[in-house]
């Protein structure tokens, strides 16, 4: 039995979501069609939209389905920022925000990338102070997928009130793990990913508050109220809706479950592995399911391999397209040296993670760290 502790890379598809999707595989049905097959698909997509909206306290009409959080982030940034207008973001954002911001900057958009502190937090005041009259959008991720830090999004929203600047947050790593409510956050746009919360990969959503004028990046048919053309991924959207429904229903329990397991993991690692250093916030607020640890003298790359061979899936640093670990830009932004930034091991738990899994990791991990340290010292 393998132990999967990489839910921040992608959570397993929930059985209920899979069942819901199967009802829409192998049958025709374009939601834009007039016939019964089309109507059935249309009803299912709209029901899923309502579930996704409910997860974040939004109105269904404001939810735009996309191919994932990456597309949602692209749509938010490219849909609102037109050079020479600019944007403000932080150094620890996901690549789909940072690289899109850099691409816009290369086209002449103003860009401010704000630093974070040693625990991976940006200060709300810094974000607001970095805004200039030409700033069209502020994009600050809610929960960081690598270290679990949580940004003060509501405080940033309060600071921006009345400026006319729009605020976007990538909540892909927060939804299903902590309460996410668009009104409480005070944001204008919010990105979601289905496969981070037990839905299928290849589906996501951008929530766009009513009244925000978004330039569509995909043009064609009138789908998604003209904000994202193209026939809907009906089965994927249905799976997303079901996963969102479960996430909303189970949120309190899931967060407590994750926090308890992560606390056990960290407590055990501290006792059993000399020199372990936790990367990320020392105390809440933080994403409850994420533990990022460096083991000095022990390469994260080697540890990922040995854990994999021992049946435990975790990740280190950022992964390139081939799966090679690169120094994490998040740990670098938090002031870690490049060697430490390569050694951060990320363990992220999910609904299916058990106490037995944690116990097994706490038996295997210390021995493997010691093995690597012996090899590195020899």
């Amino acid at each position, binding site marked *: 039995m393998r132990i999967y502790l990489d839910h921040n890379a992608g959570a397993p598809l929930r059985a209920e979501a899979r069942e819901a999707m199967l009802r829409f595989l192998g049958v025709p049905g374009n939601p834009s069609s007039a016939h019964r097959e089309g109507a059935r698909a249309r009803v299912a997509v709209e029901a899923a939209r309502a579930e996704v909206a409910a997860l974040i306290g939004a109105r269904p009409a404001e939810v735009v389905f996309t191919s994932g959080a990456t597309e949602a982030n692209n749509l938010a940034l490219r849909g609102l920022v037109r050079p020479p207008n600019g944007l403000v973001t932080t150094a620890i954002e996901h690549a789909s925000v940072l690289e899109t911001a850099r691409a816009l900057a290369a086209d002449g958009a103003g860009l401010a990338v704000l630093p974070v502190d040693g625990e991976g937090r940006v200060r709300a005041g810094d974000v607001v102070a970095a805004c200039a009259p030409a700033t069209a959008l502020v994009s600050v991720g809610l929960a960081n997928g690598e270290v679990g830090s949580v940004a003060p999004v509501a405080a940033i929203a309060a600071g921006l009130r009345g400026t006319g600047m729009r605020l976007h947050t990538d909540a892909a790593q927060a939804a299903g793990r902590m309460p996410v409510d668009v009104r409480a956050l005070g944001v204008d746009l919010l990105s979601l990913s289905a496969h981070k919360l037990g839905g299928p990969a290849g589906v996501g959503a951008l929530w766009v508050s009513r009244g925000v004028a978004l330039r569509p990046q995909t043009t064609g048919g009138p789908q998604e109220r003209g904000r994202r053309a193209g026939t809907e991924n009906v089965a994927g959207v249905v799976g997303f809706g079901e996963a969102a429904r479960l996430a909303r229903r189970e949120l309190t329990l899931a967060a407590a479950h994750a926090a308890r397991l992560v606390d056990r993991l960290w407590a055990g690692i501290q006792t059993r592995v000399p020199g372990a250093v936790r990367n990320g916030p020392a105390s809440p607020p933080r994403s409850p399911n994420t533990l990022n640890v460096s083991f000095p003298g022990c*390469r994260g*790359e*080697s540890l*990922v*391999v*040995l854990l*994999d*061979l021992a049946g435990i899936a975790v990740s280190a640093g950022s992964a*390139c*397209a*081939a*799966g*090679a*670990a*690169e120094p994490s830009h998040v740990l670098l932004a938090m002031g870690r040296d490049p060697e430490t930034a390569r050694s951060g091991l990320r363990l992220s738990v999910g609904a299916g993670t058990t106490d037995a899994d944690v116990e097994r990791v706490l038996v295997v991990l210390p021995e493997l760290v010691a*093995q*690597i340290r012996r*090899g*590195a010292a*020899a």
Partner: protein
Amino acid sequence: MRVVVAMSGGVDSAVAAARCVQAGHDVIGISLRLARDGNGSCCSLDDFHDAGAVAERLGFPHYVFDFRDVFERDVVRPFVAEYLAGRTPNPCARCNEHVKFGLLWRRARELGAARLATGHYARIGVDHESGRPLLRTAADATKDQTYFLFALTRADLERTLFPIGELTKDEVRSEARALGLPVAEKPDSMEVCFVPAGDAAGFVERHAAPEALRPGLVVDEAGREIGRHHGVHRFTVGQRRGLGVAGGARRYVKAIDAAAGTVTAAPAAALRASGLVARQVTWAAGHPPAHETSVAVRIRHRHAPMPARVAAVSPAEARVRFERPGPAVTPGQAAVFYRDDLVLGGGWIAEAIQ
């Protein structure tokens, strides 16, 4: 026994891995991300996918490690610096020494491996008297890669496997076909892996500090100006192209003086060296020979070994005298000493003896 196999994505390392699996080893395949800008012929995503597909087919785990920093430091920068210093570098030998048998071995040891296997065409024998491992040329002389492996130490050889050293290239391909490996028909890699289209001068120009690229003079053997050039890094000893010298007899690069920025051109006969000086010499026996010794010396990868006599000047320096005046001697390349199929030692060519 756990064995890490260095996998390039090509057919040679794929068959090397297959043979390790057949031998009953606990195999881990590792591919290395080396080049910073993946526009050379190596380290492309396709190569990693090919290596991964082979591992999947043979049923062992495969990973990709990011070695770009060490490759840049130990291979790419010295490559650029050597050209700027008027020498012709041998990056494959450096990569083997520092990257594959250096850092990759250290990683392999962290993973609990007892051996590192590669798809090189070379063999490892044993000296029956001392028990020392000895580097031997491949069974397929046309593919032999010992020229790039001479710097491996005794400790390196003791933990290394060359599983295809007894095979010809045709045999490697037919083994790959028999195993259904998806890389069986993949073309051989050529040239230096990180230099696109074999354009070393262009690579140096993109990676050197602009002030290091200086034009200079082409002179004859008497030091008279006979032309101009755009930088010493564009030349290698023995080269004819690019001298821009019109008329008269054909001339070749005889010497490069990077400090003065001059390239000396001369007729072919003037390039025929009678020997060379090699530095950073290592000896398979662990110490230099006591007396001048008859060997076959190889001074370029594609050249056949030539009969010569080698004498140690000091533990790390040797003088080589060719039995017959040889072709052009290129500083920066390796000089590797053979007796029959044994590698006796080798070093880096510092200068020609005319």
